[in-house]
């Protein structure tokens, strides 16, 4: 059965403390993986699409990478405004993980 699992469920960082969020998937014939950011009570905001293993994409303090079984969202020197829930989803059927709730303290 297709599954998308994100870890950790919640992550608390100090401002400037870099870390990574994980998204593992079991989907046959993956055709791409999406990362989204979601603020409370709002719709998800698109961040990245990754299509093939080895691919990397960057945007400001965020970098997303993809392997054959998982994707990582690396956050370098985060700021309080990076606090949000980060969701990953597979391209095939828009299956979402449950998200990682990131809290960055000043």
């Amino acid at each position: 059965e297709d599954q998308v699992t994100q870890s950790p469920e919640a992550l608390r960082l100090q401002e400037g403390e870099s870390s990574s969020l994980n998204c593992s998937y079991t989907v046959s014939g993956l055709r791409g993986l999406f990362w989204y950011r979601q603020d409370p009570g709002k719709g998800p905001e698109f961040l990245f699409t990754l299509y093939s293993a080895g691919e990397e994409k960057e945007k400001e303090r965020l970098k997303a990478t993809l392997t054959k079984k998982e994707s990582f969202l690396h956050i370098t020197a985060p700021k309080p405004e990076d606090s949000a829930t980060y969701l990953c989803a597979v391209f095939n059927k828009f299956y979402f993980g449950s998200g990682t709730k990131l809290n960055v303290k000043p």
Partner: protein
Amino acid sequence: DAGVTQSPTHLIKTRGQQVTLRCSPKSGHDTVSWYQQALGQGPQFIFQYYEEEERQRGNFPDRFSGHQFPNYSSELNVNALLLGDSALYLCASSRRRGTGNTEAFFGQGTRLTVV
């Protein structure tokens, strides 16, 4: 360029009633997907519409139905509302490409509360 717009933003309904939610996709997009998001959970896929037909469906009962209009806008209908239907309902639009879709852009959602 307007993004994905949803209406209404908030709605309160009584158990057993019916509700209709609306979505206008981003310009240039032809595919609309609907999701239900409970508090603290990721979005759960309800169904997807393309060319005015339901193309894919998630694990939701027949009480959930939809429609897509020729201008690509879409409606989500839920009949016989249950307390458990209370959630944020999200609409996402994308453009069909081959056998999949481009990345989806989401609206701000409709917060449905069933009392």
